[in-house]
């Protein structure tokens, strides 16, 4: 039996269908991402698990128990919000201690666990600060510590990294993954960032128009997309000769599809090409190995492995 299961979960707002019969089984300790463009229903799904939005139909079960019958305050879930939602009038330690206080944990035990959790997220020396005195990345960690300290059955992450700059986001992805591995909490991440979802998750749920288009491990979804939507959402694709080919799987050859280099962009570790062919514009990504590459205006031939 799955740890958390969504069974035909739906949400209608008037005539608008936000979530349309979503079924998903999450195993204990698994890291699952709900991935999709804005308006695909991923956040609504998260809010229904959290209890802030009431489903129009379907069921949510946690270890077989009906979660919908449990009040949001009693569900014991840890949530990290996009805006972090820290309590601005409380110090970092008070923020993190809040959940323990609500559970009636004794003061000494509380202090110990708050200290422990702040260590875990690398903020051991920040206990006395206020959120406004911290950077976005640090606030994000406080939010994570506050959610983890109550030892939640499930950790829900709502676009937790989207307010950080690109470099910090990458660092936090690695750290988040490590922390999740350490504590082993079942985690559901909502994101529109396919790179983030692929980097972090055991499995992806690629959503569109309230439905799951594909559920599976990131590598599988990328290599064998179930629908054209999944293919285009998980990275770039080319449609040549009626088949979809990833740009990094096309190489320059002596024969094959003839074309002319329209633009060539250097991106450090790789080159990004736009090739004009009889089949239309084809995107090609080649590793930068230090060798000379075809320049703009040059005639080239493209080849790729048959799938």
């Amino acid at each position, binding site marked *: 039996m799955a740890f958390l299961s969504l069974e035909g979960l739906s949400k209608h707002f008037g005539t608008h269908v936000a979530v349309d019969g979503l079924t998903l089984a999450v195993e204990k300790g698994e890291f699952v991402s709900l991935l999709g463009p804005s308006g695909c229903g991923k956040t609504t799904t998260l809010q229904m698990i*959290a*209890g*802030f939005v009431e489903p129009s139909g379907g069921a949510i079960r946690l270890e077989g128990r009906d979660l919908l019958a449990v009040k*949001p*305050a*009693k*569900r*014991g*879930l*840890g*949530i990290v*919000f*996009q*805006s972090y*939602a*820290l*309590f*601005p*009038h409380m110090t970092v330690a008070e923020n993190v201690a*809040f*959940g323990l206080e*609500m*559970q009636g944990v004794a003061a000494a035990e509380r202090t110990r666990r708050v200290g422990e959790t702040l260590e875990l997220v690398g903020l051991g020396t920040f206990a006395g600060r*206020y*959120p*406004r005195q911290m950077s976005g990345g640090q606030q994000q960690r406080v*939010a994570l510590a*506050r*959610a983890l300290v*109550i030892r939640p059955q499930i950790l829900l992450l709502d676009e937790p990294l989207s307010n950080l700059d690109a470099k910090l986001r990458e660092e936090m992805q690695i750290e988040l993954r490590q922390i999740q591995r350490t504590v082993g909490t079942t985690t559901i991440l909502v994101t529109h960032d396919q790179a983030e979802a692929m980097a972090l998750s055991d499995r992806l749920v690629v959503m569109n128009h309230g439905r799951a288009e594909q559920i599976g491990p990131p590598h599988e979804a990328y290599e064998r997309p179930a629908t054209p939507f999944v293919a285009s959402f998980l990275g770039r694709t080319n449609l040549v000769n009626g088949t979809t080919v990833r740009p990094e799987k096309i190489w320059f050859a002596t024969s094959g599809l003839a074309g002319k280099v329209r633009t060539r962009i250097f991106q450090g570790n790789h080159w990004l090409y736009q090739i004009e062919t009889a089949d239309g514009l084809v995107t090609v990504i080649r590793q930068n190995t230090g060798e000379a590459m075809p320049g703009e205006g040059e005639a080239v031939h493209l080849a790729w492995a048959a799938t």
Partner: protein
Amino acid sequence: MSRNGPIALIYHTLFVIFMLAPILVVCFVAFTPEGYLSFPTDRWSLRWFYAIGRYPEFISAFWRSLWLGALSSAIAVAFSVPAALAIGRHRFRGRDAMTALFMSPLMIPHVVLGIAFLRFFTELGLGGTFVGLVLAHIVVVLPFALRLTLASAVGLDRSIEHAAISLGASDRTVLRRITLPLVLPGLISGWALAFINSFDEVTMTVFIAAPGTETLPVRMFLYIQDNIDPLVTSVSACVIAITAAALIALDRAYGLERLLVGRSVDGR
């Protein structure tokens, strides 16, 4: 900060003079030794400040205005908290009508309110009582209290409350530990603005105050009807001095901008 050009500078100077001139004139006149309103030229005197001592009703009216403002503003703020939380964060039937109702005292001329309350309080046996004054002032200052309370309720991030709920807090705990502390700056600003409006109110109060329950502005208004001596100017100068001192103290302790705009704790 961008530098202003000469025209902007002249404009600002004229504007400040226009705003401050009446206040300065009143303060100057207060120091006249004459028995009528005159601009002191060569001789200065504290005569009219000492004269306040001979009119204890001015002193008691001042304290009454202070209490009336503090009390009616506090009650108006207490009323506006649940109203602001409901109006600011939920969509329900009659929401617009409710907002319009609470804001309506702004639209009704105070003369009309004064006459209406006079008639109403006489009927209830509250005519000329302090309780009557408090009730009437609550109605008049409620829009000011509500406006700022509403602004801070609307600006509140719902996910902060959701975070507290997810951590196991009951609705009551969320209100007490999270929501109220976060809207507190708005409540303080709302109270301050309401207090200023109550302290200043004369048009309505003159109808419902009786001898013995006159507020300071009413006392001054009535005095100036029968007398042309500069006593009211020395009283005004005192009020201006007290106000200035209070504003400076508040600015040092809390920040005037924060007080009157109602910035939240974490608003930078």
